[in-house]
């Protein structure tokens, strides 16, 4: 009864637009109070304790630092230079700009690690350029929205950091490494329908007439941006830095590039950069802390076990349950961002993972793929909302293009389910 009430109140509040954190915190506190009606203060002293404990974790410090990295690199003009270099590399021709979009989104994901941020950064540069080259805006919006969803897969991903804090035994470097190959695979998979559709409908005919940037000059310009993921990921691999330290090194590297090399960041921009990234981090961290209260209430009410039992005994079998999860998380991914989904669902799903002896690292990658799928599924997808706004199209117009890109991502999802080693090979190889 309490449980039904808890979930009903929680979902209702979320749907009417109460901030996710507040819905989690209030529902959690109500459940704790109802379950401990006889104790002193209704056991509610656990609320601030869990809030404080949920936040006071050193690994979480990586979140504000990576948000800061993203903010600095978004401002530094790296994206534009990466676009130039990518064009110099793949050349000009019908269907080449979509390839560039996907490649640049992947590289930006290797720097900043937040999804809709990349949608805005890449979309701001590319959608206008694609329109001038003869791609319909709806198509461009779809491609950019899909490409940006790779971001939560390619390290450093903030959603992965949250996952590793939630799941015991999953280290940040391990899950980062696990996301690498599936992320690249998704990138390649998205390029296929993007190029095929462009060729089929003769998009981008004017593209071949545009000048091609000189290869070496654009490589030199882009090399500062290209070095960033190497620094972040290589530094962690070599054992020089922890993830938090890698982020902070990238912060100062990005500031050096932006202020000294490209001269696109001025000293007084620092205030805005620090304020914006601080506020964005706080928004994420508050949800993390308040989800701690919710998770505690789930464990005191003891509903996770019966729920797990009901699911594993439902006769669906291992793959039936997996299919159900894909369906559910894709739908949830349409409404919510990856971090909130992890915070709400990982505590509920972990016992199922343990029951079937699924590898938690593999499951983390799978979960992220499902969320990525939701992030550009019309009609309410997060990333598409951003790119449609930039392109000035309605989301319904993108459906006929996006459907192919969704199919491509879904294929990768199936591959990772059938061959878990796509995700697990690299972390095993690197010895995490």
């Amino acid at each position: 009864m309490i449980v039904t009430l808890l979930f009903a109140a929680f979902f209702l509040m979320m749907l009417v637009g109460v901030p996710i954190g507040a819905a989690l915190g209030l529902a959690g506190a109500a459940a704790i109070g109802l379950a401990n009606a006889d104790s002193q203060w209704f056991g509610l002293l656990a609320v601030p304790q869990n809030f404080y404990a949920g936040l006071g974790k050193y690994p979480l410090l990586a979140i504000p630092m990576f948000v800061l990295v993203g903010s600095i690199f978004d401002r530094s003009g790296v994206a534009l230079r990466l676009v130039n270099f990518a064009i110099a590399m793949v050349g000009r021709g019908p269907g080449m700009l979509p390839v560039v979009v996907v490649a640049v989104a992947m590289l930006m994901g290797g720097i900043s690690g937040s999804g809709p941020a990349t949608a805005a950064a890449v979309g701001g540069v590319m959608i206008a350029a694609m329109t001038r080259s003869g791609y319909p805006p709806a198509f461009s919006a779809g491609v950019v929205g899909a490409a940006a969803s790779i971001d939560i897969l390619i390290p450093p991903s903030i959603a992965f950091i949250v996952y590793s804090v939630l799941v015991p035994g999953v280290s940040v470097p391990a899950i980062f490494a696990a996301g690498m190959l599936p992320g690249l695979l998704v990138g390649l998979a998205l390029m296929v329908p993007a190029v095929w559709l462009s060729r089929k409908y003769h998009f981008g005919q004017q593209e071949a007439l545009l000048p091609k940037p000189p290869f070496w000059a654009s490589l030199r310009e882009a090399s500062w941006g290209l070095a960033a993921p190497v620094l972040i990921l290589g530094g962690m691999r070599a054992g020089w830095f922890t993830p938090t330290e890698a982020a902070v090194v990238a912060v100062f590297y990005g500031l050096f590039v932006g202020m000294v090399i490209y001269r696109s960041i001025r000293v007084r921009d620092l205030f805005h950069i620090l304020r914006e990234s601080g506020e964005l981090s706080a928004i994420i961290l508050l949800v993390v802390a308040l989800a701690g209260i919710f998770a505690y209430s789930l464990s005191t009410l003891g509903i996770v076990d019966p729920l797990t039992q009901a699911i594993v005994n439902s006769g669906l079998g291992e793959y039936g349950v997996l299919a159900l999860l894909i369906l559910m998380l894709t739908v949830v991914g349409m409404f919510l961002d990856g971090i909130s989904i992890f915070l709400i669902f990982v505590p509920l799903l972990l016992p199922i993972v343990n029951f079937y002896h699924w590898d938690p690292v593999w499951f983390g990658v799978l979960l992220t793929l499902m969320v990525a799928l939701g992030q550009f599924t019309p009609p309410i997808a997060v990333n598409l909302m951003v790119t449609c706004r930039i392109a000035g199209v309605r989301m319904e117009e993108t459906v006929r293009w996006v459907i192919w890109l969704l199919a491509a991502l879904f294929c990768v999802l199936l591959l990772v389910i059938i061959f878990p080693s796509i995700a697990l090979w690299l972390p095993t190889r690197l010895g995490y």
Partner: protein
Amino acid sequence: MRTLHLSGSGVHFLFVMHLPHEPTHLPIDVPDPAAQDEVTVVPLKIEDWLTVIVMGLLALITFLNVLVRYFTDQSFAWTEEFSVFLMIVLALVAGSASVARNRQIRIEFFADSGSPARQRRLARFGALMVALLFAMLAALSTRMVYDDFQYGETSPGIGIPQWWYSMWLPILSCAIALRALGLFIRRGRRA
């Protein structure tokens, strides 16, 4: 031709707070963030400056930690405790500004559709729930701080009284609750 001018105006494309579900904050041109900021009675500059200082400190301390470790083979463990404390302060202080600006992560699909009256009602309801939560947190955490104080708890890392850290939770929770109330009032006025 050395660079292609893809976006026309150069490199300062689009960067605003782009959290999911915040399409209203995604203009095509880079706006002056101050221009469309929420107008509050208590200036948001307070939180903004604190955010900038704490964020800068966090980056500097962590960076110095890396340098010191590499050049002297020592690590100062006490920074870890202090950094975690700063992060909690950041979450609450910058969180307070984000509440006043109504930038929390939320599902906008239903809340931002329908008649303006309905949108306003739902926005006020959301603000009220945030105020309720943080007022409760402030009250309950006062008791937690009192316990820390009464039993003389000390922090595990540096060994200073725990209440020096925990006292900020009720104080800043109060601030957030008041910011949420302010938002509730402002959204009511805009009729």
